Each structure stands twice: as structure tokens, then as C-alpha cells.
């Protein structure tokens, strides 16, 4: 695992984040033996896992707490298309391989597997209950079986790619990074899985007073759209922190960002500049 250069401002911010998250200042070892035989240090936070285990049954309820994620999902594909369209060389029209980390109930993983351009999707999540829901749901679409593989494992538990054939065109981290205790190490652990010229695509929430109001106060406490404890505001990461992390001699280029806002009655809307306020997508391309 790459060492963290403690001098960069962005990583200082990440470390600051971790210091201000005493609730999760516990050992970060994997608790699922199914994940890996290596016993490697995991990015997975056990409290987060148990929280999402409890949420599992409502994952595919269109009127449940995951409704906002269902509504956001098309934008994820739109953002990936924008990233692909920005490449100097056009992206392949078929045969793409996706790795979805923290797939949850499989909202994105299923949708990616349905795309004609996608050859296979590997989707991983450390929560066994959530993954069971994902697998059960995928059986309702007989077209998915041949393209979609779920693994109950963390990124550290995946076998290291031996070559290009084991790497992925798109590695996605949707609403994941804000649940990770050591995000910098986690992102470095993801790097080997991305093909040269491939993308890490993620979405998360900026750590601002507005996001505290919308995701903690309104969504969890007042409106109760999502269960209490879903978000840990101190772990939110800002776009410039991510940008700084990847661009610090790690072999990444062409960062892209798209801020999105949920407008009741209209759904998720792209709003330029809103990445500074709340939810945003971030994409970055691995050097070829």
C-alpha cells in the first residue's frame, strides 16, 4: 500500500477528517472471513457494515429510503458518458468491464450490466445481508446472470490483477468514500484495478455547512428520508481534496466534476458549481 505523503494539503485535510471522527477510531480489520484469505488490512468499517445490513431489506423499495439513490442512478451513467466523451480516443462501444465497489443492493451494478456496451460487471460489498438482497434481486432479471457477478469482499480482498485482462475500464465508488475511514489508502488500493486509460468514477458529498443541513439535519432528523446514522458528516470529502490526492504524482489525469442537487418534484438536477455545496460526481482517468 502506498505511503501517504503527509505534506500535501489535501491529505492533511483527509487526516484532519479522520481525527475529527472519533466514533470510528477503532481497529479497521475485516470482520468477514469470506472476504479474503490474506488477512490484509481492510478499508471496511464494521459499524458502517452493520448499519447497511439493517437497511438491506428496503434497498429495492421504490418508496423506501433508497428512492433518492434510484432516482440518482441515471445521472451516474450520464456522468460516465461525459467522462468517456472527454477522452482523446473514443471509448469502445462494447466489451467494457466494470468494477463496482460498495455496490449495496446493486442499483448501479444491475443497470451497468444491462448496457449493451458493458461486457461484465463485478460488484463487491462487505455487507453480507445487503449482498444477499442484491443477488436475490438480480434473479428477477434473467438477462443479468451472464454479465453480473457479486462478491462479498472488500477491495483489499480482491485478487490483485495479474495483467490488463484482470483490470477494469470503469471502477465505480458511488456513495462509498464518505463511509470509508481511511479514504486515501482506500483510493490507492483501488488504483491497480483500473486499466491504463480507464476511469475511477465516484459520487459523494462535500463537507460543507449546506451538506450538514441537508443530509444530517433535514434528511435524517427532520424529514426522515434516510435512517439516522446513514451519514457521518465529518467523513465527507471535498472535490478539491480528491483532485489534490489523485493529481499528486499518482498517475491520474483529466479530473472531472459535476455537482447535482435534488429538487423535490423534479428529481436530481445538474447544477454547475453545486459540487462546492453538496452531492457531486467526480471522475478521473488513469494515465495510459
Amino acid at each position: 500500500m502506498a505511503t501517504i505523503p503527509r505534506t500535501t494539503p489535501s491529505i492533511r485535510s483527509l487526516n484532519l477528517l479522520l481525527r475529527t471522527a472519533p466514533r470510528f477510531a477503532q481497529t479497521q480489520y475485516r470482520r468477514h472471513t469470506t472476504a479474503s484469505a490474506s488477512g490484509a488490512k481492510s478499508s471496511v468499517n464494521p459499524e458502517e457494515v452493520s448499519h447497511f445490513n439493517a437497511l438491506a431489506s428496503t434497498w429495492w423499495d421504490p418508496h423506501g429510503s433508497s428512492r433518492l439513490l434510484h432516482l440518482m442512478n441515471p445521472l451516474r451513467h450520464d456522468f460516465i458518458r461525459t467522462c468517456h466523451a472527454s477522452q482523446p480516443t473514443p471509448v469502445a462501444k462494447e466489451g467494457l468491464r466494470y468494477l463496482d465497489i460498495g455496490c449495496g443492493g446493486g442499483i448501479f451494478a444491475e443497470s451497468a450490466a444491462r448496457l449493451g456496451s458493458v461486457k461484465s460487471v463485478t460488484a463487491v460489498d462487505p455487507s453480507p445481508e445487503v449482498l444477499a438482497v442484491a443477488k436475490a434481486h438480480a434473479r428477477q432479471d434473467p438477462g443479468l446472470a451472464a454479465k453480473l457477478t457479486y462478491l462479498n469482499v472488500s477491495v483489499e480482498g480482491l485478487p490483485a490483477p495479474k495483467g490488463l485482462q484482470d483490470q477494469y475500464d470503469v471502477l465505480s465508488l458511488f456513495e462509498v468514500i464518505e463511509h470509508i475511514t481511511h479514504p486515501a489508502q482506500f483510493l490507492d488500493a483501488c488504483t491497480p484495478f483500473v486499466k491504463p486509460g480507464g476511469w475511477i468514477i465516484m459520487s459523494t458529498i462535500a463537507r460543507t455547512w449546506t451538506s450538514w443541513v441537508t443530509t444530517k439535519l433535514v434528511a435524517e432528523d427532520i424529514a426522515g428520508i434516510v435512517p439516522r446514522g446513514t451519514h457521518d458528516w465529518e467523513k465527507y470529502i471535498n472535490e478539491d481534496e480528491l483532485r489534490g490526492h489523485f493529481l499528486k504524482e499518482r498517475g491520474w489525469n483529466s479530473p472531472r466534476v459535476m455537482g447535482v442537487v435534488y429538487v423535490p418534484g423534479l428529481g436530481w438536477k445538474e447544477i454547475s458549481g453545486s459540487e462546492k455545496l453538496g452531492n457531486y460526481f467526480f471522475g478521473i482517468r488513469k494515465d495510459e
Partner: protein
Amino acid sequence: MKPIARSIRTRQLGGYVCHSCTRNLRRSRRGYATTSQPSTLEIYDVVCVGGGPAGLSLLAALRANPITSPLKVALIESQSLDPTRKFSLPSTQYSNRCSSLTPKSVGFLQDIGAWEHVKRERVCGYKGMRVWDGVSGASIDFSPEIGGAATEGGVVAYMNENLNLTRALLGRLDELGGVEVLEGEKVTGIGFGNDTSTADLSSWPVVKTSGGRELAARLLVGADGGNSPVRTFAGIDSRGWDYGRVGVVATLQMEGEGWGCEEGKIAYQRFLPTGPVACLPLPGKFCTLVWSTTPDLAAKLKALSAEDFVSMVNAAFRLSVTDLKYLHDLPSGQEEEVSWRENHTPFEREHVPMKVVGVQEGSIASFPLKLRHADSYIGQRVALVGDAAHTVHPLAGQGLNQGQGDVESLANTIAYSVEHGMDIGVRMNLERYESERYAQNNMLMGVVDKLHKLYATENQLVVGVRSLGLRAVNSLDSVKGFFMRQASGRGEKFL
């Protein structure tokens, strides 16, 4: 996992599985089949029940769009489609079932490549509408100069035989290919699939046909008319009422091509207390009649000789309501009676349709008028379009256009889902279709219904107020322009 097991069934294979794989598996399964024909479940992305204008347009739209063309689609139609494919009449004969197509509907048909298959010489664009009150005589004239409603060439709407449209849609589908057409096969039942060891199809509708086939549908589309079996399967109620009226249709021949036809033909509609009577232009000297009236009077009209029927049509646009009541009660001899009364009734010759001189043999028919609106257009893996979703009074000529609007919206919704990897059948992913169409259709149906009720009275007060309103609107070009744009499908959107 070893796929070729004793229990393998094609139901485990999805719409996105390549066809040759499905075929191979099915072939391998035949080895285990007993002497009776095995009922093999076939999996489709879209199964459309009903091969009318709505169903055929939907399939053509899905096949014509490169985003949705990989979908595996099937059509189930209980009748043979051959009479439609072979539809051909000389230029002196027209089918009695005609519909008005708005420029918006025509634009959609052009987009999906169907309009060029329509026999254009049998279509009549009209440039004006004249509508008047049969009791007070108050009238309103719409012409394309007002309001900018019209397309290039100033057409407000196109009159077209329904068969000309369905024939064109079938031609377009033949050209596109890729639709599994089950014609002459009735739907004998709709149920749900099973949860087997490899796939859970318990949320998938499975349609059984009289031909012994079983089709599992990712999305089952009900384009199956007013008594939609698909709607019944989905448990969606349809509410409304019967008007106690029937629409009498006929293909008529006039003495000329119509007043001012050099500048564009005119559609005429007169509101009588029994219902509106409309004369809608077809090419040449022909026009199509839609006369909404009571079942009793319709039966009397249909029993008349051709000459007397023609006279009654002329009378309906010219004579007073009192005269009409008298004429309806005559068992025969209307021809003579009408020609005498016309001489004693003042009307402006060019404000009513040209005199009708003949009715095409066998073209007089009637159908009951009603209003129906389904409680919802969507369910889990179900969508309703056209008459399965709504039936409207024909007085505004919007029935077919509403169906085309549904189809355009549903096809766009499906394309959006495919583009974003969403399951096209899941109710949440169909919500966009319903939200685009339901309120809009409901508003239009409400307006049409109120118009019918407003004019179905001879109450002096109501007649006075409605005539005042009509005359006021007639003098206000901006208001007329608004109505014109609404009628042509290019109106402002409220919802």
C-alpha cells in the same frame, strides 16, 4: 454451473441473451420432450397486446430507434392482419372509419418513418374549422392565419382512414423487421412466471395465446382497446360513463370539392341538442360523416333509403332543430320533405358543407359513445396506451391523437430506461410516462366532455350564455389562436 441440466428451461434466459443461445438451448431441451408439444416459455422485453394504431406505432417507434431496437419485441393480435396489409380501395371509395391526425401526431409518424408509407393521395389536410350552435346559430370560425397553429401549408389537421394508417404502420414494421408477430392468436390468459432455481420470474407477466404459446414479458403493453384484458390483469379500474349516444359514420359524396377548396378545405361541425354532427373533408368530392345522436334516432337513420339518408345529412347542417325532430319521425320520404323545407329556411350556402349527393354503399355504421379513463396507465411490468387507457367523445377528433401521444411518451420513456440500464418494466421506471400523459389526457377529456354536455341542451338560458361565449370568442383572435393550437396538438402545456 453446468447450464445444460435436465431442469433447464428457456425461461431462465433473458431478453438480452443472444437469440442463437436461446435457440441452442431450446434445441437441446427437445431431446427430453415427450410426445406432446412442450409449452416452452419465451422471454421478451416488450409484449404488446393489440395491433391497432397505438400498438403498431409503439412497435414501430421502438424498432426505429437504435437505442431500443435491440429489445426483443412481440405483437399479439387476435385478428388476422392480412385485410389491413391488403387494404386498397379505388380513389372513389373511402373507409367509413376515419380519424383526424394533428400535425403533432403526423410529426411523430414522420419521426418513426411510418408517414411515408401512408397513401398520401387518400389523406386530406384541412385548413379551417367552422363550428356553430344548432339552436342559436352562433358560430366560430377557425382559420390557420389565426394563432399560428398550423404547420407549413397551413394545415390544422389531416383526415385519414384508420386502415390507411395501420396499413402504413405494418409496412414500416415489415421494413424494420425484428418483431415477432402472433396474428390471429387470442390471449387466453395472463398470469405470472415462476421462481425457478436460476431465475425469479414471479413478477413477470406471462401471456398465453390460443396458439399454445407462452410469452413472458419484461414489459407487457396493453394496446388492446376499451375492454383491455391487460388492464384487467393489472387490476387497474377504468371509470367513466356512457353518453347514451351513438356515433353514426358514413362516407359521403358532395356535389363539389368544397367551398373555397382552392385555398384549403374546411371541416364543419354543428352542435345539435342530440349531439354534434360533423362533416370532415376527404380528398376530391368526398367527406366523412360523424353524427352523434341517440340510439333511437341512429337506428331510424340507418333504416332510411340512401336518398332519404343523404337528405337527412343535408338537413342536419341546414334546418332548424324543430324541423329535424319532425323529419326524424317520418318513416320515409325525407328527400322531398327536406328539399321543400330548405327553400323556406334561411341559411348562408357557403357557411355549411356543400350539398351531399350520395352515400357510399355499406358505409353507414354506428358505435356507442362513452368516456372512460383508467385509474392508472402503469403497473409493475404493465403499461396501457390508447383506448385501453382512455376513451373520449369523438367531437374534438382527439382519440387517435391521444393514443399517438401516449405511444410517443412511452417509447421515449423506454428509450431513456434502456440508455441508463434501467429495467424497462419496473413501475418506477414507467412513472415518467404516466406523469407526462395522465394529467394532460385527463384535462383534454374533461374539456371534451363538458363541451358535449354544454351543447346537449335546449335550455334557453344555457343556449343564450353559450352563444354569447361563442360569439365573444369568435371576435377574439388571440383566444381562437389558443384553441387552434390546442386542437392541433401544439398548444401551450399547462401540466
